[in-house]
C-alpha cells in the first residue's frame, strides 16, 4: 500500500496529540478531584450526583428542623419537671395548712409561701426559647401568664383550638411542637383553671376562720395539674424519642448518600495515580516514536 509522507507525519502528530489528551484529562481529574466536571463527560453518573445532592440538601433541612424541635422539646420537658417540683411543694404546704392544728397566723404564712410558689410556676410557664414563649401556643410573642390589673394571673396565649406550631421533619410529614397554657392548667374561665383555684386557696388561707376541709380539697387541683404535666411530659418524651430516631435514620441515610456521591463524583486517587503513570508512559512512548518517525531516515540521507 502506498502511503504519502504527509500521512506518516500526520499519524505521528495525531498519536502524540491523543496521548497528551489522555494525560491532560487525568491531570484535570486529579486537580479538580472530580471524575467529571461537565455533565456530558458522564451524563448518567452526573445526573445521579445531582439527584443525590438534592436529596442530601433536603435531609439537611429536615435535620435542622428536627434538631430545633428537639431543643425546644427538651426545654419544655425540663421546665415542666421543675413545675412539678413546685406543685409538690405547694401540695405539702396545703397538707400542712389543712391540719386542724394550723392556726390562722400559720396559714397566712403558708399562703404567702404558696403565693410565691404559684408566681414561680407562672414565671416558668413564661419560659422562652430564642424569641418564642414555648407555652403560649401560636401567640409566640405574647407572654402567656401575666398579672391583670387586679393582680390576678391570667392566660394570654392562644387557645388549643387555634392550632399548633409545626415543622417539616420529612417529606409530607410535619411535627407539632408547641404547648398552650390551657393544655396544662386548664381553660381560662376565671373559676376552674389552676391559677383561679390557687387564688381561691389564697383566700381560704387568709381567712380569719380556716375551712380545713375546703383547703384540703384544693389538693385535687394540684393532682389534676400534676397529672396533666406528667401526661404532657410523657408526650414530649415520646416525641423526642421519635425525633431522635428519625434524626438517627436521617444521619445514616446522609452517610450512605454521601458515600454514594463521593464514589461517583470524587476521584479515587490511587486509581488516578496509576492511570497517570500509565498515561505518562504512553505519552513518552508516543513522543519517542513520533520523534523517530518525524526524523526518520529517508533515501535522501543516502544521497
Amino acid at each position, binding site marked *: *500500500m502506498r502511503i504519502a509522507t504527509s500521512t506518516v507525519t500526520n499519524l505521528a502528530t495525531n498519536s502524540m496529540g491523543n496521548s497528551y489528551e489522555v494525560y491532560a484529562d487525568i491531570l484535570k481529574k486529579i486537580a479538580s478531584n472530580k471524575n467529571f466536571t461537565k455533565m456530558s463527560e458522564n451524563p448518567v453518573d452526573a445526573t445521579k450526583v445531582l439527584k443525590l445532592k438534592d436529596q442530601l440538601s433536603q435531609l439537611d433541612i429536615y435535620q435542622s428542623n428536627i434538631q430545633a424541635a428537639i431543643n425546644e422539646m427538651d426545654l419544655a420537658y425540663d421546665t415542666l419537671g421543675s413545675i412539678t417540683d413546685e406543685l409538690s411543694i405547694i401540695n405539702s404546704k396545703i397538707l400542712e395548712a389543712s391540719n386542724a392544728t394550723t392556726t390562722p397566723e400559720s396559714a397566712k404564712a403558708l399562703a404567702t409561701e404558696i403565693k410565691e410558689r404559684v408566681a414561680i410556676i407562672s414565671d416558668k410557664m413564661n419560659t422562652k426559647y430564642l424569641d418564642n414563649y414555648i407555652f403560649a401556643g401560636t401567640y409566640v410573642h405574647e407572654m402567656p401568664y401575666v398579672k391583670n390589673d387586679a393582680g390576678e394571673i391570667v392566660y394570654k396565649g392562644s387557645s388549643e383550638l387555634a392550632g399548633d406550631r409545626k415543622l417539616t421533619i420529612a417529606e409530607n410529614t410535619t411535627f407539632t411542637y*408547641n404547648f398552650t397554657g390551657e393544655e396544662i392548667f386548664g381553660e381560662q374561665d376565671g373559676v376552674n383553671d389552676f391559677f383561679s383555684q390557687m387564688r381561691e386557696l389564697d383566700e381560704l388561707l387568709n381567712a380569719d376562720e380556716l375551712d380545713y376541709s375546703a383547703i384540703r380539697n384544693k389538693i385535687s387541683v394540684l393532682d389534676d395539674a400534676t397529672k396533666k404535666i406528667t401526661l404532657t411530659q410523657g408526650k414530649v418524651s415520646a416525641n423526642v424519642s421519635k425525633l431522635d430516631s428519625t434524626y438517627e435514620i436521617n444521619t445514616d441515610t446522609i452517610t450512605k448518600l454521601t458515600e454514594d456521591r463521593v464514589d461517583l463524583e470524587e476521584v479515587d486517587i490511587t486509581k488516578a495515580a496509576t492511570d497517570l503513570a500509565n498515561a505518562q508512559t504512553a505519552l513518552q512512548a508516543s513522543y519517542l516514536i513520533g520523534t523517530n518517525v518525524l526524523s526518520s531516515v529517508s533515501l535522501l540521507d543516502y544521497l
Partner: protein
Amino acid sequence: MSLNQSMNISLNSMKNNQYALTVVSQNIANLHVEGYHRQRVDFQTNRYTTDCENVISTIKGMNGASISSLSDFIDEGLFNEGIGANSDAQYYNTLADALEGLEDIADDLGDNGLNALLNDFFKASANLEQFPTDMTIRQQYVMAAQNICDKFNEISAKYDSLQSDKFQNVQNDIQVINTLLGDLASANEAHVKANQSSETQVKINEILKQLSNYMDVSTEKNANGTYNIFLGDMALVEGNVQKFEIQADFDSTNPDSAVSFKLQSTEKEDFVITSNVTESFTNGSMKAYIDFLNGSGNGFSNVNDMKANLNSAASAFANALNNIQTYDDGTVFAASLTTVDGEIVLEKATEPMFVGNDASTIQVNGAILENPFLVSAARIDLDKYPDGGWEKSIGNSDNATLITALQNENICSYGGGQNNCTLSQFLINNAAKNGMDTANILGKAETYQGVADSLATDYANITGVNLDEELADMIKYQRAFEASAKVFSTVNDLIGTIIGMV
C-alpha cells in the same frame, strides 16, 4: 540507425529526464503543501519519421522516446466522497460546539447554580417555619428568593447571548460562503484560461473543500472543466458567474425568532428567492446552526427549547409561591405580619411574592423586598378562632410549612406529562438531557470526523507525495540522464574518430 540519429535520441533523452527531474523536484518542494497532488511525466516511444525507418524499429524503440503527458494524481470520486464526509463532520462538530455552550449554561441549573439556590431557599423557608417572626430570618428568606430570581434572569440572558452569538456565527459563515462562491467563479475562469491546469484544479478543489465546512457541496462539472454549485435546485455559481449571494435573517429582539435564509441575485437587485432556501441546507455548519437555533425535530436540545423550559420553571415557581403567599378562600387565608401600636400582629396577605412570570422578568415584589414582614408565613383558619384573636397567632407558620413542602410537590411538567415533577427534578432533568445530548453529539462528531479524516488520509495516500518514492524516481531519472549523456559522448567520440580517419 545513423550516428546523428543516435545523438538526437540521446539528446532528447537527456532533455526528457531533465524535465522528469524538474517534476520530481517540484513534488519534493511541495511535499507538505496541503492539497498538492503529485505529478509524474509519462514517456512514449517515438514513431518512425522517415521512409527508411519502419514499424519494427519503432517497436524496438530505435526512434527514441518523448514525454507524452504530465499525469496529475487526482481521484475525483474519492475527493467528492471526502468533502461529503467533511460536511457531515462539520455539521456534528458545529452542533457539538453549540451544545457545549448550552451545557455551560445548563451547569447553572444544577448544583453550581439554580438548584443550589433553590435548596438555599427551602432552607430559608424551613427557618421561617421555626422563626416566623424573626426579621433576620425573613430577610434571609426574601434574599434567597431574590437570588433565585437573579439566577433565572442571568441564565435567561446567557441563553439570549448564546443565541445572538450563534446568529453572529451564521452571519460570519455566510460572509465566508459568499466570498468562496465568488472565488469559485474566479477559479473557474482561471481554470478555463489555464487550459484546465493542475494548479487551477487544485485551487478549485481547495475552494470546494472549504465550502464543504459550511454547507453540503452539490456540484456539476461542465465540459470545460469548470464547476457549477447548487443550493437545493438553485445554481449559486455557474461557470465563471456567481448568480446568487446567500443572506441570513434573524430578529434578535424576538426570543422566539428563527433564523432564515434567502438568495439575493447578484445580477438583479430586486430578484430575491426566499422559499425553501433554509430547508436546502442539509449539512455543514449552516445546517447545525439552523437546527440549534430553530430546533431540528431530532429531539436534541436546542436554545429555544431550553429557554422555553427555563421560562416554564420560572413561571411554575412564581405561580406556586404566589398562590401560597396570597391564598384566601374566605375562611382560610395567608397572613403576613404588621405592627400595630408597637405590637407585631398578623394581617391578611395581599402582596404577591413575585412579579414577572418568566425567567427574564421574574423578580421579588419590591414591596416585600423593602418590608420582609409582608412575607406570609402564617395561614389562618377563621373557624379556629370563633372568638377572634387570630391576629395574635404570629407563631403560626403553616404557610411557611406549605412553602417548604413545595420542594416535593410536582409543580412542573416534563416530557409531555402534566405536573409530573418537582422544580428541582425539572432542572436536573433539563441539565441531564443537555448533558446527554452533548455527549451523544460529541460522540457522533468524533465518529464522523474519523470518517472524514480516514477519507482524507486515503485521498492523501493516492494523491500525495511520498519522499522515498520521489527520491527513487530522482535516482532513476539521474541514471537515465547519465546513460544518455554517455551515449551522446560516445557517439560524439566516434564521430570525431571517423572524421580523424578521413
